[in-house]
């Protein structure tokens, strides 16, 4: 007895669950996400010019400022160092169209942090992805500027000023896979370059910051659904590769759907969540009025997450029904 008291290495630790901890603290993980986003930022500057960097900076600045202001108003500890506001700002900056107005970007960032996150109580309590809440607000507030796409720098022809998805939906123009992968196409800042998104996304999965099940389940199920439609009618419905690389799907699935707070906790739940995102997405893209639906599909599935968590709760060990 006395011996154990004197020697601290024998101390028995008694804590409540969870007993398995992540390799990364919240702050470290947030910074790793920021690193993973850098290739996308570079790609957007490369394709759309230096003004885009200004959009991203304004977005980040206003996101952090709003968070600090609300925390100060509520007399809470100012937590902007945890990086969540930084990520919200970065993501929002990357999902607005190129050459978007700076004042509208600022408004979007304020709404994203204030209404998307802080009204629920701050980081860890939000139901919906804050950056997507900001974008949904902007989409409803300024529908015309939000769907005005600038031509990328290396565009070979005039048609690129529309996004590949709207070009396909309204004019039946198919963009070739090479441009889709590189990102030399019209679209929001961060969504155009599939390769840059993939580099960041695979980095995040490899170091274990995001769970592989969500991207894998969304990609697999979108591929499956798109193949199904493509085999039914190969002229009317685009190829599965087109659905994967066009629009904001990859960006959404790696950086938005995987957000820890708004995605399910269990492995089974993550599969259901991923398949749900792809199902809603393909329904919007093929049967809906809009050419793109990544934002709405992720927001809708965010709303289902508490329900998914409830129904996929693992059985208590040894419990008999």
């Amino acid at each position: 007895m006395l011996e154990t008291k004197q020697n601290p290495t024998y101390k028995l630790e008694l804590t409540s669950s969870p007993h398995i901890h992540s390799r990364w603290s919240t702050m470290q993980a947030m910074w790793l996400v920021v690193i993973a986003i850098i290739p996308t930022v570079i790609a957007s500057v490369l394709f759309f010019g230096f003004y885009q960097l200004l959009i991203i900076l304004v977005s980040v600045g206003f996101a952090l400022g709003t968070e600090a202001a609300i925390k100060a108003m509520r007399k809470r500890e100012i937590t902007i160092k945890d990086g969540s506001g930084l990520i919200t700002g970065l993501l929002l900056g990357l999902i607005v169209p190129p050459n978007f107005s700076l004042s509208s970007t600022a408004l979007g960032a304020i709404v994203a942090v204030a209404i998307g996150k802080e009204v629920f109580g701050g980081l860890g309590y939000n139901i919906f992805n804050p950056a997507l809440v900001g974008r949904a607000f902007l989409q409803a507030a300024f529908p015309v500027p939000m769907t005005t796409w600038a031509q990328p720098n290396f565009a070979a022809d005039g048609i690129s000023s529309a996004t590949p998805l709207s070009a396909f939906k309204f004019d039946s123009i198919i963009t070739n896979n090479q441009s889709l992968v590189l990102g030399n196409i019209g679209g929001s800042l961060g969504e155009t370059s599939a390769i840059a998104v993939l580099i960041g996304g695979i980095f995040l999965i490899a170091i274990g910051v995001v769970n592989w099940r969500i991207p894998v389940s969304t990609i697999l199920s979108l591929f499956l659904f798109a193949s199904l439609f493509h085999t039914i009618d190969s002229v009317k419905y685009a190829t599965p590769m087109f659905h994967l690389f066009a629009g904001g799907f990859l960006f959404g699935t790696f950086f938005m759907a995987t957000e820890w707070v708004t995605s399910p906790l269990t492995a089974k739940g993550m599969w259901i969540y991923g398949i749900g995102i792809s199902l809603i997405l393909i329904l919007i893209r093929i049967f809906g009025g809009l050419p793109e639906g990544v934002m709405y599909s992720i927001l809708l599935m965010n709303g289902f997450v508490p329900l998914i968590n409830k129904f996929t709760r693992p059985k208590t060990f040894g419990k008999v029904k």
Partner: protein
Amino acid sequence: MSSKPSLSNEFVKGLWENNPIFKQVLGTCPTLAVTVSAINGIAMALATTFVLVFSSLIVSLVRKLIPTQVRIASYILIIATFVTIVDLVMKAQFPELSKSLGPYIPLIVVNCIILGRQEAFASKNSPFRSVIDALGMGSGFLLALFVLGSLREIFGSGTILGLQVMPNFYEPWLIMILPAGAFLTLGLLMGLSNFYVTHKKKIEKENIIQEYLKIKAT
């Protein structure tokens, strides 16, 4: 009689303490649907107040004649009479306003504020008191709809009561005149009013403690 609150209290409670929108959360359907502009909000609130005041008066007058089993149906009948009057008058006198309010004028019949006041107040109180209560509730409704309508009009169209208030370079936020804007604005306003109330209560509590400590010290 002395236990009853004063007449001015009966009126004021509807404005803030028991505000039909912010506190009782009644009649939110017309509130959210028609407040795309301040003028719509005012028209809706005035129409509702008219119906509320007169049905409260009639219900209070006949409260002892109505059998309990059929009271709701009787109230609805009385309310519907006044709603029909409002509807026809608005169609004749303000055809444009009537068009922009659409089906929400006839729907005043099922507005919970009105039926709620008949059930909770007019059926138990004297006609005079009921009218004062109805006026208070109507004013509270007017206040809420005017604030909501003005905010949505300022941000959604850059105007208030049709007058330009925002600078020319201001780009209107279309979302504010869409249903989503109504929910956002109402939610934030309710949050603000709750924040104010809890803040006030906290200060009151602290004052009581301070006074107690003072008494204890002496």
